[in-house]
């Protein structure tokens, strides 16, 4: 099953990439979408088996990759909770994006190539998360980097897209350099790259030291920090983040899939995967926390001032990644993964929604040229609201909330519960960022959809709702953005040890009906819980059913629209892929229902099993359930406050933003120019590197290496050849002369030696 879930996208890539011309654009779209959707179905099944069920985690070894002395690496698929969570996220978001792209790229010339790249990316990402050793992870890591490069620069007729692609690649190289060193360090320490081998030995090396750059350093800290360097690059944390906003040059589905939902979370996954290592490197954890918290804050401040709709969301992504990292830093790996999952849904939703807006506005991305289009594209408008509310983390404590409400609160509570200076630092940074997040989310909605239209009349007259093929994925993602937090709260971060706190807890919708947990939960709580289960299950079912029927309606509508567009009978294949989509939705529903009845991993211990390692006494997620009430409520208040503020700024008193800009001229410039990171890098690194490069290129390469090397030898060879050619005069006596002289020479040689 895991084989299908991982290799179907590869198959799709090969088919669409190599035979794209033969099977045509529609063929490519069907093959890739169908493959990824089937893969998604399988990964959901795996999720229920391995994550929520009580299947043991396992590794499927495909073949030996490298066998060199003691260095042995396999190709293997590791299936445990961590990887199946990632597989679900990747495959579900990827299928949505695949379907969405059919509509979004409908005017593009190279649809087949685009779909092939998307599938390639999906495969590489799956290889990354199912790796059972660091080298295979590195393979996937580089694979997603390549796919990202190809997709950012997909519109390669645009110089800015090419530049952005190169920037992403080069900046990631810096991070990957660290990752590669980290992998080598791990090999030096443990003598193996297999996760199992590493994790089983970690405690033995807790105090191990080795020499790095001439200093004797704590080995695990060094290795962890080097690995984290890779994560910083891939996940656009402060310092190596400059590529992410530029990456928005790629088509919007790409931004949704790669630069919001999946690839950029690879760093989070890496740290979570290597949790045993980081747990024994407290210093590294502090660094991770501080990096994450600072990123969350800085990115949010930049997001306040940007006008490009995609860039706003990009900075928001960066900021949310910061949340995930400081959650990791305070050992709340479950919370980080939880936020990763919910974030994937609502951020992909926001991006695809933004894509829908851009599509409607004839490729306009500047929010200053939008406004007043809410009524014209109501579905997109609703979706954007759902996404934004989820991002802002809005919910009603104890009853229901959007996905971000559960995960973001959990992250912040865990940070507070860490009860350390960096935990508190992260908490306050996170609260500040939460205010700003809500503010710019509101700003985005209000500027884009409300107020007076600022676009030209021509554009306004063209505005139209996106086709069903683009909206259907939005609905699926919106479903995730609404319910993902609510449904999986207990599984990801629910606690078994702090039952007494559950009474006070904001949300406890799905306590377990399973027997082996009952002992741990007080009977009163249980009774409450049972009632709530009934309620919740009802809600879910209703939700799912409306959702599915929605999707079905849309699909039918879409099939009809296709039939109109292509009266020549092309509709069958496409309609089929859409049916797959519906089937997938059905399967989702079915399995969900099934699991409501059957056992449901009710606590994070049941869910994560042993895939995440937390040192004793360090379990901040457990502790987070017991923090003071104000700590729990503050994030929500921050979110509502931010939203309210944006309402005042952009609806009630539209002149206010300008006044603020005037009042805070210099801070605004700092933020508007993204804290001058790009300028700083340009002055410090890029210019000097170019200068150095020019020296080496002209003086070193051209004048020395080329002249003495390739060019020189080639010339010398030709000259030698010409000389030989001249000796070949054609005169027979010359030939004879040379023969005789040679014989004489040889004879002399032996005479000389004899005497």
């Amino acid at each position, binding site marked *: 099953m895991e084989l299908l879930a991982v290799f179907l996208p590869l198959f799709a890539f090969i088919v669409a990439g190599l035979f794209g011309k033969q099977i045509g654009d529609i063929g490519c779209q069907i093959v890739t979408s169908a493959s990824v959707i089937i893969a998604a179905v399988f990964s959901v099944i795996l999720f229920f088996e391995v994550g929520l069920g009580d299947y043991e985690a396992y590794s499927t070894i495909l073949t030996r990759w490298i066998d060199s002395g003691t260095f042995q690496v396999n190709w293997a698929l590791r299936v445990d909770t961590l990887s199946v969570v990632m597989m679900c996220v990747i495959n579900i978001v990827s299928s949505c994006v695949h379907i969405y792209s059919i509509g979004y790229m409908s005017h593009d010339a190279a649809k087949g190539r685009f779909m092939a790249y998307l599938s390639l990316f999906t495969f590489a990402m799956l290889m990354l998360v199912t790796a059972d050793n660091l080298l295979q992870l590195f393979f996937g890591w580089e694979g997603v980097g390549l796919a990202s490069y190809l997709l950012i620069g997909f519109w390669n007729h645009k110089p800015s897209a090419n530049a952005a692609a190169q920037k992403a690649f080069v900046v990631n190289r810096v991070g990957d350099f660290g990752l590669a060193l980290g992998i080598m360090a791990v090999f030096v320490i443990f003598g193996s790259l297999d996760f199992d081998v590493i994790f089983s030995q970690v405690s033995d090396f807790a105090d191990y030291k080795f020499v790095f750059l001439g200093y004797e350093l704590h080995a695990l800290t060094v290795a962890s920090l080097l690995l984290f360097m890779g994560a910083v690059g891939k996940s656009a944390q402060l310092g190596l983040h400059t590529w992410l906003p530029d990456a928005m040059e790629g088509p919007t589905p790409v931004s949704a899939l790669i630069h919001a939902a999946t690839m950029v979370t690879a760093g989070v996954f890496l740290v979570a995967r290597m949790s045993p290592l980081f747990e024994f490197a407290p210093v590294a954890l502090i660094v991770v926390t501080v990096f994450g918290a600072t990123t969350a804050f800085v990115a949010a401040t930049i997001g306040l001032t940007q006008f490009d709709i995609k860039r706003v969301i990009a900075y928001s992504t960066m900021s949310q990644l910061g949340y995930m990292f400081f959650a990791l830093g305070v050992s709340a790996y479950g919370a980080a993964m939880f936020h990763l999952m919910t974030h994937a849904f609502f951020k992909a939703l926001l991006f695809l929604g933004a894509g829908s807006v851009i599509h409607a506005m004839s490729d306009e991305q500047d929010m200053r040229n939008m406004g007043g289009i809410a009524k014209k594209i109501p579905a997109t408008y609703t979706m954007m609201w759902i996404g934004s509310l989820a991002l802002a983390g809005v919910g009603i404590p104890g009853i229901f909330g959007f996905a971000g409400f559960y995960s973001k609160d959990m992250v912040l509570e865990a940070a507070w519960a860490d009860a350390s200076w960096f935990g508190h630092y992260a908490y306050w940074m996170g609260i500040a960022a939460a205010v700003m997040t809500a503010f710019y989310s509101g700003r985005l909605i209000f500027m884009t959809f409300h107020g007076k239209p600022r676009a030209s009349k021509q554009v306004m007259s063209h505005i139209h709702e996106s086709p069903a093929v683009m909206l259907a994925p939005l609905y699926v993602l919106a479903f995730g953005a609404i319910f993902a937090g609510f449904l999986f709260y207990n599984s990801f971060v629910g606690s078994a040890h702090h039952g007494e706190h559950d009474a006070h807890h904001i949300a406890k919708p799905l306590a377990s009906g399973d027997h082996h947990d009952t002992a741990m939960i007080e009977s009163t709580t249980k009774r409450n819980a049972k009632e709530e289960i009934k309620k919740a299950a009802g809600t879910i079912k209703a939700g799912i059913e409306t959702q599915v029927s929605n999707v079905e309606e849309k699909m039918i509508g879409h099939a009809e629209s296709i039939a109109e567009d292509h009266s020549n009978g092309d509709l069958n294949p496409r309609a089929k892929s859409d049916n797959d989509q519906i089937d997938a939705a059905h399967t989702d529903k079915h399995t969900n229902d099934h699991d409501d009845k059957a056992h449901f991993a009710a606590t994070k211990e049941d869910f994560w099993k042993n895939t995440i390692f937390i040192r004793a006494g360090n379990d901040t997620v457990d502790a987070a359930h017991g923090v003071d009430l104000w700590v729990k409520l503050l994030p929500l208040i921050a979110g509502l406050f931010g939203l309210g503020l944006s309402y005042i700024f952009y609806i009630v008193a539209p002149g206010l933003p300008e006044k603020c800009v005037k009042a805070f001229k210099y801070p605004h410039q700092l933020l508007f120019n993204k804290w001058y990171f790009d300028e700083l890098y340009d002055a410090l690194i890029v210019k000097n590197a170019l200068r150095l490069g020019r020296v080496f290129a002209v003086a070193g390469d051209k004048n020395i290496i080329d002249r003495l090397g390739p060019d020189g030898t080639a010339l010398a*060879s030709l000259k030698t*050849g010409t000389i030989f050619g001249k000796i070949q005069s054609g005169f027979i006596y010359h*030939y004879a002369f040379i*023969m005789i002289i040679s*014989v004489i020479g*040889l004879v002399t040689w*032996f*005479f000389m030696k*004899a005497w």
Partner: protein
Amino acid sequence: MLDFNLIPILPEIFLAFTAMGLLIVGVSGGNKSTDIICWAAVLSCLMAIFLLFGISWQRTTVLNDMFIIDQFGGFMKLIILLGMIASIALSVKYLYQEQMIRFEYPVLMLMACVGMMLMVSAHNLLGLYMALELQSLSLYVLAAFRRNSYKSAEAGTKYFVLGALSSGLILFGISLVYGFTGSINFSVIQTSLSNEGAANIGAIIGMVFLLSGLAFKISAVPFHMWTPDVYQGAPTSVTAFFAIVPKVAAFALIIRLLYEPFAPLMEQWSQIILFLSVASMTVGAFAALVQDNLKRLLAYSSIGNMGYALIGIVAGNEAGVSAVIIYLFIYMFMTAGTFGVILCLRRGGIASEKISDLGGLSLTNPALAYAMAILMFSMSGLPPLAGFFGKLFVFQAAIDGELYALAIYGVITTVIAAYYYLRIIKVMFFDDPVDTLDKDIPFARRAVIFVSVIFVLGFIIKPNLLVSSSQSAASAITAPQGLAVKKTIKEPPQAAAAGDRPSSTEAAATVTGAQDK
């Protein structure tokens, strides 16, 4: 005293009689019977192969030690006969296309073949010379075969005059060796030399002359001067024959000479071969860079290839000899295929020989272009084609013999040589097409190209077939002398130290005395 066991010599006798029989047929049938004679010649080569397999390859000497048959000789003869079949098959149609239909052509080739087979089996310096001359005289005539062509006549003349010079060198060498060792019999020479070793300067000089003459036959630098001119001037089918077969025979002869009579002088001859090898590789790599005539280019290519093959001899071990045999075998196949393609390059009945004539061949005649590309890749030594393995074994032998510098030099020249092979491919695939080729490619030529390409591609699948048989052939030539060789390797320092003239002249005197008896 009379040793009249003629069984081991049966294939040669058969071929000689057939050749003369076919001559009679030709005389009575005139030039019209040329193609019949050609195919009869092919058939007789096939028969000779059967006969060759029929006789025992156990080491035996017959005709008063004039003639030897052993594993090595048998295997080399097999290669020669295969090469003969290929080159006659390539020629038939060409004779008609170029209006040089004369029945003597196949007869001469058969004669040359007899000469070459006798060379391989020579066990006596005079036998060697006779066989060599039989072969050479046939080749001189063949080179000038299109006698109304100025170039062909020039090629024949040059080849003849320089060949005569080389024969002179060989004869002089033989007389010196005879004078200083007292015998023309290979075994006696070996025994005599292993007693004296390097002290016998006369014999060494004789060997130098002998080797120089033979180096002419394999066109090793600096005795290669005739090669480009003759390759270019001779009719293409003859050039193909020159490139394919006589080299193998001459190589076999050199190996036998060096490992049987002159085995005790390994220290000395390896210096000569080293020089020849390095010089050949150099000239082969560089001079071909500036050629624009295909046949001339292949002449330099063959010079370079002889240089690589010589590396195996310098290595001086069994692996080396086996590598040489493998190398020659593969080289023969590749060359046959390549000339097959060149023979197909005809436009409106006129043969083209320029590299530029290959332009756009991939469009006008893709099958031919791909065949040529595969052959060229193989020639330049790219894995997984056969040519790569030929070079691999040779360089491996050099490494085993601790000749690192030589191996490295070989690899470097391979890289340089790759340029002109790849250039041909580039011209075929990337240049603008010239006019289309004539379509009528005869079956025999197709077959030769096909077999050659299949061999080149398929060698990697079952390399052991060739490798193991060449190893047994190599061990047959190196094993019996093993003791003697080892002995001389130890000896030279002493001999050189005590190398004063009196002892050598004394030895010469005693040997001559013995001869007088």
